[in-house]
């Protein structure tokens, strides 16, 4: 009896966390999924009405804008942050004396809240007093940089701030990857007289494929969850020009009192995340069991 109890202790200690995850993750996803199939407005109603909320969602121009923005922002944010991060990592990998300092400088934005980042860039890109005014005062009177208030350009302003924040992190990932490449192979290639850039494109980068994937997953995840950055930088505006699914969901849930729409938009967001993350997680977990 005592031995049996002894063997149950690990399960008993793990149980509260497991139950909490079951309720607060899986149960709550279930609740949101259910609500997304009802006609709930200000308060939840539990009678099912099929896909009515999703039909409303996909018919809403504002949601259209939010999804378009997500793909535009996501593509640019991921693409630029990856390219910049890789470039920085390769530059830093050239036996630089001040590498530690430079690394610290490139990565510090990642420690900041996106609200802080958004606040700073909002001020820098302020048309009246920021970069625009500065360049004009240098004599370029016709210079214009008003992206934060231009409905067609505001999303690019969000990309700039996002890249500033996350590219250092990509740099850190790639740098760790570059350092883990077998130095014997590189030495052998150098002895064979293979030029430096060929060593990168033919040997080092291909061996870093898993790190490209990791960086992509993390950045995609950041892009889909981006909420704070848009709130602080543009407030979703002008109008709803920079709405993302996350800000749409928040607006429906807490200011429009339309929780049916909030629930269905959240479910679509989760769908997008899982389309990207689940294949990755699956392969990760499988690889571990082999």
């Amino acid at each position, binding site marked *: 009896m005592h031995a049996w109890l002894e063997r149950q202790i690990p399960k008993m200690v793990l149980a509260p966390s497991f139950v909490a995850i079951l309720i*607060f993750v899986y149960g709550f996803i279930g609740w949101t999924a259910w609500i997304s199939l009802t006609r709930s407005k200000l308060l939840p109603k539990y009678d099912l009405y099929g896909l009515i909320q999703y039909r409303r969602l996909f018919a809403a121009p504002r949601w259209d804008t939010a999804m378009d923005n997500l793909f535009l922002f996501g593509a640019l944010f991921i693409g630029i942050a990856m390219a910049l991060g890789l470039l920085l990592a390769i530059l830093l990998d050239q*036996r630089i004396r001040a590498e530690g300092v430079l690394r610290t400088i490139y990565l510090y934005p990642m420690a900041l809240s996106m609200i802080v980042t958004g606040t700073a860039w909002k001020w820098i890109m302020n048309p009246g007093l920021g970069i625009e005014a500065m360049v004009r005062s240098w004599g370029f009177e016709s210079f214009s940089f008003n992206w934060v208030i231009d409905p067609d350009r505001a999303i690019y302003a969000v990309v700039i701030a996002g890249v500033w924040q996350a590219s250092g992190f990509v740099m850190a990932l790639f740098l760790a990857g570059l350092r883990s490449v077998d130095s014997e192979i590189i030495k052998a290639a150098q002895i064979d007289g293979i030029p430096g850039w060929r060593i990168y494109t033919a040997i080092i980068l291909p061996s870093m494929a898993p790190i490209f994937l990791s960086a992509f997953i993390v950045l995609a995840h950041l892009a889909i969850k981006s909420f704070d950055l848009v709130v602080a930088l543009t407030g979703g505006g002008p109008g709803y020009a920079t709405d993302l699914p996350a800000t749409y969901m928040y607006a429906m849930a807490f200011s429009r009192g339309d929780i049916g729409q909030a629930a269905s938009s959240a479910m679509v967001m989760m769908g997008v995340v899982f389309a990207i993350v689940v294949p990755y997680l699956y392969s990760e977990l499988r690889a571990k069991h082999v």
Partner: protein
Amino acid sequence: MSDFSAFSAAPRAVAAPARPGQIALRWLLFSLLGLFALFYLLPLFVMLTTSLKSLEEIRSGSLVSLPREVTFEAWRTAWSGACTGIQCEGLRPYFWNSVLLAVPAVLISTFLGAANGYIIAQWHFRGANLIFSAMLFGCFIPFQVVLLPMARMLGWMGLAGTIPGLIFAHVIYGIGFTTLFFRNFYVTIPSDLVKAAKVDGAGFFRIFWSIFLPLSLPIIVVTVIWQFTQIWNDFLFGVSFSQAGTQPVTVALNNIVNSTTGVKEYNVDMAAAIIAGLPTLLVYVVAGKYFIRGLTAGSVKG
């Protein structure tokens, strides 16, 4: 401070650049690195200089010019006088809200992660891997999908709009990551250790306290830093689950910056942004190595 050691270290012997072409390349490399450093430092520099200028100087001067007359007025206002909506108490009360919320949330979630990771990595039983997968999966959900039911649940528990409610939310949704960190750390410890300890008569808790916890300092530091950064910088939970008096500092900062009443005080906005960012920035400067390890632990799992 290890990240700054390169600054003071004696110049290392770099492979001597012989040909002029290589010297030019070296210069190009350094100027590129320097330009990028400027790009990353510019916002911090602008924030700092703007926060030390008077409004008048901001309107007449240039974005990147140094303040002609340094004034700390904006800092004082940001800390104790700026308006977040109708209240004008500055960031101070909200800063303490964030401290009161982050400290317990970090400690509880780290402790739970350590216990969970220890069990999953060392006390194999049927279903343990399934439970781990279930927790891991929870790390990746967009929080929007739990926002509505969590708000209702907190209301139902009587915790709506309170700091304990926010702590609760951060602990629950932090468990996945903290468990992941500790599990991945404990997996590398040979299971013979537990077997030997059991032979010697040590039980589940004894082995945890006397053998595993003392080994865990590095991963505890990584986890605490990760959780602190996440929770301090959180905005979504803060804005969704708090009310007028209990908002964390990020929400208050956003309210100060985006409040539409009165004259726009850019210097106060910048001082407030620096204050809100200072704790995590400080952690980063002091323990950057562990910060990076936490960032990469989630994505490059070995």
